[in-house]
């Protein structure tokens, strides 16, 4: 094997650095799923009757559904009765009221992860909501945001403090019956983030949620709901990690975004769940439903995702472009290494007039990774003058990985324009040698080429996170090129 092949391999084989376990006492319910479990979760959260009913309805519907098999991913059958559906770090009865009450072990965990939870957060200018296993443990900057009328905090809190808002929007973008995993989430979701930005307010800082799965054999089912009222703007980022375990863990989240007239939501994800080991053992099954509704005129929703983790990713952040002139964007970098599989993409549904959407997807496959782009662009009859541009590029490192592209286009009127471009390239031994002949090491060469490939997407990330994402990509690929 030539040295450049070796570098590709070393690059791909870098270790997962977030795989530690926090030793913390957890309050978990017994394994398995039943109406009782749904009631128990709802009771633990002290939820109003309507929400319990909503959950039960979702659960009953879920029982009638079968797991989807159309995605280009392969995994052993999941036993939904062998999962713990609720686990929370044990603490004072009513949960922490301020950062001082949060278990120091937990704070240490977030510190290790580089999440600025404490007052250090001020420097970072990022408001963080942290979700550990099933519950939200701390929210920073809450008071400062409140002064502007912005509500940001855990979903459970929002249910208690702003039940009308939650009830008005919950399930209106991703109905409880939407799909198998969304229905499961609706039945058992334990926490997540909630954000409401009132009319005309531009949220002054990046909002961020940090998700971490810690407990063994638990599933994480968080639910995020973000509403930008007329003329509002918010930029939101989520990050995720999990300990290294040799069994697979399920993560089935739902994210709903609502943008009213002239509102803008920018939603960025840096997903780094544990991907499993080099032989493909363990890792997170990341089955997530994310959708945004541009309800108002001139509204805009922009998804940016950097997906480097998880054993399996099944995820299609989508936009419903309802308001006239509304804009949907999807920028994605998905990396699969070792035995990771990703089937990811987006759906852009054009309903309003002159709606536009842009899709830029960059898939990187290394090792035995399988990377699938699946995208749907649907232009309804009502969407006169709609435009879409899609670009799907795949980059292969080595010869054991795969890249697949499945674009679906459906156009029902004659005044619309749809463009699709796709490319597949490979980091070649000749490129690496060319760089080395100019003094650049193979590792730097690969990272340079990969970053060049992802540039268009990184540009869309908030500055603070673009740097993080680049580093993460480097780490996730280390050992993959030689």
């Amino acid at each position, binding site marked *: 094997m030539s*040295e450049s092949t070796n570098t590709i391999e070393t690059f791909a084989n870098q270790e997962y650095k977030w795989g530690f376990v926090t030793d913390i006492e957890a309050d978990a319910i017994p394994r398995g799923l039943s109406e009782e479990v749904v009631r128990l979760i709802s009771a633990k959260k002290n939820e109003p009757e309507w929400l319990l009913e909503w959950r039960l309805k979702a659960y009953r519907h879920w029982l009638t559904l079968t797991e989807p098999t159309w995605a280009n991913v392969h995994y052993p059958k999941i036993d939904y009765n062998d999962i713990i559906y609720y686990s929370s770090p044990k603490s004072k009865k009513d949960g922490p009221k301020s950062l001082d009450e949060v278990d120091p072990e937990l704070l240490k965990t977030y510190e290790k992860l580089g999440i600025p939870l404490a007052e250090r957060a001020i420097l970072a200018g990022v408001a963080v909501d942290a979700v550990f296993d099933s519950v939200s443990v701390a929210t920073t900057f809450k008071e400062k945001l409140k002064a502007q009328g912005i509500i940001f905090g855990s979903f459970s809190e929002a249910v208690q403090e702003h039940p009308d808002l939650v009830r008005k929007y919950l399930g209106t973008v991703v109905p409880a019956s939407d799909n198998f995993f969304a229905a499961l989430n609706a039945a058992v979701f334990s926490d997540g983030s909630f954000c409401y930005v009132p009319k005309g307010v531009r949220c002054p800082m990046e909002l961020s949620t940090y998700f971490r799965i810690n407990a063994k054999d638990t599933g994480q089912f968080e639910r995020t709901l973000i509403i930008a009222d007329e003329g509002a703007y918010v930029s939101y980022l989520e990050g995720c990690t999990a300990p290294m375990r040799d069994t697979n863990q399920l993560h089935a989240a739902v994210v709903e975004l609502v943008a009213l007239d002239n509102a803008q939501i920018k939603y960025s994800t840096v997903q780094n769940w544990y991907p499993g080991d080099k032989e493909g053992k363990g890792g997170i099954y990341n089955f997530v439903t994310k959708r945004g509704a541009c309800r108002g005129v001139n509204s805009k929703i922009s998804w940016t995702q950097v997906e480097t983790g998880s054993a399996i990713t099944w995820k299609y952040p989508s936009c419903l472009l309802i308001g006239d002139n509304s804009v949907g964007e999807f920028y994605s970098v998905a990396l699969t290494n070792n035995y990771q599989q990703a089937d990811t993409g987006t759906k852009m549904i054009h309903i309003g007039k002159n709606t536009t959407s842009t899709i830029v997807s960059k898939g990187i496959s290394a090792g035995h990774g399988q990377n699938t782009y699946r995208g749907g662009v649907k232009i309804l009859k009502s969407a006169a003058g709609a435009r879409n541009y899609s670009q799907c590029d795949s980059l292969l490192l080595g010869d054991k990985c795969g890249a697949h592209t499945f674009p679906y286009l459906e156009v029902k009127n004659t005044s619309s324009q749809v463009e699709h471009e796709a490319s597949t*390239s490979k980091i070649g031994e000749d490129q690496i040698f060319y760089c*080395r*002949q100019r*003094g*650049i090491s193979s590792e730097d060469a690969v990272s340079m080429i990969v970053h060049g490939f992802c540039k268009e997407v990184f540009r869309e990330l908030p500055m603070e996170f673009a740097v993080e994402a680049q580093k993460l990509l480097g780490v996730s690929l280390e050992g993959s090129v030689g």
Partner: protein
Amino acid sequence: MPLLEIKDLHAKVGDREILTGINLAVNPGEVHAIMGPNGSGKSTLAQVLAGRELYVVTAGEVLYDGKDLLGMPPEDRAREGIFLAFQYPVEIPGVSNMYFLKAALNTIRKHQNLEEYDAMDFLNLVREKMKLMEMEQALLNRPVNTGFSGGEKKRNEIFQMAVLEPRLAILDETDSGLDIDALRTVAGGVNALRNPNRSMIVVTHYQRLLNYIVPDFVHVLSQGKIVKSGGKELALELEESGYAGLGIEDEEEAVAKV
């Protein structure tokens, strides 16, 4: 002491022996032309000196500045001042020419314990070298060699050489695919870079290039060996009589006959 000393170098690719005992010494400031028919091993020699792993050295020794060259990985050879102008420059989409060249220059400078260039210094340096090669700014902002014409690629190689200022430059068929105007520009750039401390090995099939880059020595390669060496007049002799005049047949054809 010669800058480069090649002793009885043998190399193969797969099972095929291509270099069968090369001996060559290059002193500082000298320009050596390596000529020979197709398949004689000219490009292989260039690639072996640069450290391409496709070629396996089976015997012999190469000393560069007194050090064992063959033991160094390609990037270290580059950092020690060896530059190969590729016959087929490689495209690297997504990475801008500027960014690439700055990364290369700073890696080399770091290795040589020189201060790394900041963006401003680098830009000034690049502007100066651009004039030399009659390069357009636009070419610098484009991805490395991507979508360049054949001539632009070759010009870009010599431009990189001008920026990296190597001690030993190996030019592999730099003239191939160039029209006469482009050839003049490229050769002009190379000549401007000649100095008493810089040695060059110019690999070419045709004598034409040597009208513009006048060598100190000419070597004729056949079947992986240097069969004749001389001054610049040897190239002209070859031009008159062809390789056949030296009793050498085109070796790709020769291989085909076997």
